[in-house]
């Protein structure tokens, strides 16, 4: 599948200078050679170190991490601002950015003039701005003020105008730094709706935010950075949950990244933070997909029953864990997602090894390639103990001539049309 954004081994360093580095030519001249030596950077620190990931078109990726983790640097490098020291960034498609919204705005010019300048700076031609002008002003709700100088606008009005221009630039890739606190609540809602609409239209979005809740709600995937390094990149709810868990001091524990690569019974590699996420307080030891007869399967016919056996190990007592199962299509679309909690099954405290089995009586999916993702979660869904993502493949055999997601039990039936044969056209059904 073609990718919208490909980031390979990306590293970016910033120079840290001597505190008494000369900032003027005068100082350089006055201090002579000693001053010149101070021009060179004292040290370099890595804002990003060897970060690799890719984003498929139409996906929304949230970037999380503490301050100084390199989130904004990553966002700007994707946008082509600055140059990486190592590695490279490819972005396929026109890039739009919800950053520095008022760039180019000038208080002495009218709203109308500023829309043109800001729109052209954002990447549109004058003709394109003119064509979108009414929509922009309408979105910003500033019809009556548009010919007044910008200095007569409130800060909120200026932000609205900046946002309105930015969302009308028609980007294929949209970069957002923090969910914008633009104007009043009604307008914020409008902005979020607009971002959701962008997503529905199949545009790729990269969002940097401190707010893990909005990342979980809005994004498909999350990317977690810590001191410039990629910690985890995977499903937004899982990665964000894990991030929250690690951030809260009481659940901070040994680094899961130190764990070795484990092989599953089907031979798939389990690599922490690539296809396996979680605190590992409780582990999924084995997952078996079984058919009606109890034999392990990787292929089924549509409508066949499926059994998922999950073997787990809880070295310490774990109160009321939640088991979850997701059937997702190869491209990430979630076809079915359920959990013990959603099914009203409350588990007791578990300790030691054990097994839980999930039965699907009919797997009524259209033919194709799927994954069964399996997870164990903290009882409040705060984070995952162990989550295996895209580890267990499942092929539903193709039947031909059918499209969509579901393949419910079905049949065709036709009334005896011979009576009305004379007056109505008939439909041949095979």
């Amino acid at each position, binding site marked *: 599948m073609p990718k919208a954004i490909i980031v390979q081994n990306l590293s970016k360093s910033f120079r840290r200078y001597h505190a008494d580095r000369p900032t*003027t030519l005068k100082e350089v001249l006055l201090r002579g050679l000693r001053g010149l030596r101070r021009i060179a950077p004292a040290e370099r620190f890595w804002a990003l170190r060897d970060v690799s990931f890719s984003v498929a078109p139409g996906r929304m990726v949230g970037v999380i991490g503490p301050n100084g983790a390199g989130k904004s640097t990553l966002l*700007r490098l994707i946008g082509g*601002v600055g140059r990486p020291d190592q590695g490279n960034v490819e972005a396929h498609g026109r890039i739009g*950015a919800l950053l520095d919204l008022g*760039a180019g705005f*000038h208080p002495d010019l009218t709203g109308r003039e500023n829309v*043109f300048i800001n729109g*052209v700076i954002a990447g549109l*031609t004058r003709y394109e701005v003119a064509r979108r002008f009414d929509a922009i002003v309408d979105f910003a709700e500033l019809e009556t003020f548009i010919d007044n100088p910008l200095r007569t606008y409130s800060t909120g009005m200026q932000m609205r105008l900046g946002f309105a221009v930015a969302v009308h630039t028609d980007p294929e890739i949209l970069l957002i730094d923090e969910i914008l606190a633009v104007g009043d609540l009604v307008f914020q809602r409008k902005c979020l709706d607009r971002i959701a609409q962008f997503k529905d239209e199949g545009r790729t979005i990269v969002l940097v935010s401190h707010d893990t809740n909005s990342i979980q709600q809005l994004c498909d995937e999350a990317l977690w950075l810590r001191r410039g390094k990629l910690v985890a990149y995977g499903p937004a709810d899982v990665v964000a949950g894990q991030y929250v868990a690690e951030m809260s001091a009481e659940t901070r524990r040994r680094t899961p990244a130190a764990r070795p690569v484990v092989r599953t019974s089907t031979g798939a590699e389990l690599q922490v933070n690539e296809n396996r996420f979680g605190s590992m307080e409780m582990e999924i030891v084995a997952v078996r997909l079984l058919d009606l007869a109890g034999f392990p399967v990787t292929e089924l016919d549509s409508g066949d029953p499926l059994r998922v056996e999950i073997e787990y190990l809880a070295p310490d007592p774990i109160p009321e864990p939640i088991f979850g199962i997701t059937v997702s299509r190869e491209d990430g679309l979630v076809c079915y997602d359920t959990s013990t909690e959603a099914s009203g099954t409350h588990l007791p405290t578990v300790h030691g090894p054990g097994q839980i089995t999930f039965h699907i009586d009919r797997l009524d999916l259209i033919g194709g390639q799927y994954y069964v993702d399996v997870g164990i979660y903290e009882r409040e869904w705060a984070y995952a103990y162990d989550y295996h993502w895209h580890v267990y493949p499942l092929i539903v055999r193709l039947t031909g001539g059918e499209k969509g997601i579901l393949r419910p039990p079905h049949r065709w039936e036709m009334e005896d049309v011979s009576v009305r044969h004379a007056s109505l056209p008939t439909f041949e059904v095979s």
Partner: protein
Amino acid sequence: MRNPVASPHVRKSLYIYDLLRELVVRDMKLRYKRSVLGIVWSLLNPLFQMLVFIFLSHRVLSLDIPNYPSFVFTGVLAWSWFQSAVIATTGAITGNRELIKRPGFPAAILPVVTVTANLIHFLLALPVPLLFLLLGGGRLTGAILTLPLVILFQFLLLLGLGYLAAAVQVTFRDTQHLLGVFLILLFYLTPVFYDASVVSGRYQIFYYLNPMFHLITAYRAILIQGNLPDLRFLLALGVFVGVLLWLGRTVFTRASYRFVEEL
């Protein structure tokens, strides 16, 4: 306003043109927005300078130059363009921090914007020396057809200098002030209000090394004497400007990777 185009290359050039235009127009609008006199300001300054020099030439220095008002006004105009563009372009990057940080914004356009805005002031005032000349009984010749070429050379000279100065200013923020001082010196070493032929031979070499000397001489040849400019000097100037522009652009591009960090 033109129709939309399908080809990405055409769109790109169209976009760069529109961006340049918007930024230049913004520059012009801001300069005149809240002043009653508006565009007349760009004429008043060289006019007053000219009056001062006319007074000086008659009462103090007794320079004997024919068509002196046109002579001095031409010099003042070309010099004003040079001086204000060099100063403004030096701050083109440091003064547009927010634009530099925007994804996809071509930083290299900013020096072009300031030089172009100053070119427009120059062009707006250009009819004035012609008017003086015609009032004084002079006449225009076909040599005026070479005027755009001389203007182009000055434009490219300013752009080359501008790229260098703008890049240096990012690291050393007093570049603009130092240049201001240097330009005052250069003003007296450029024959703006006098004729370089009065300077003794020993010092002529400094004039030959000063590109503004050649430019102002060329303007005067075309506008006042009605002659073609000295093509040998013009050619040498062209080569110099080409090399300078290449150098400026190279330095600027290399420095531009650090703009975001240092702003």
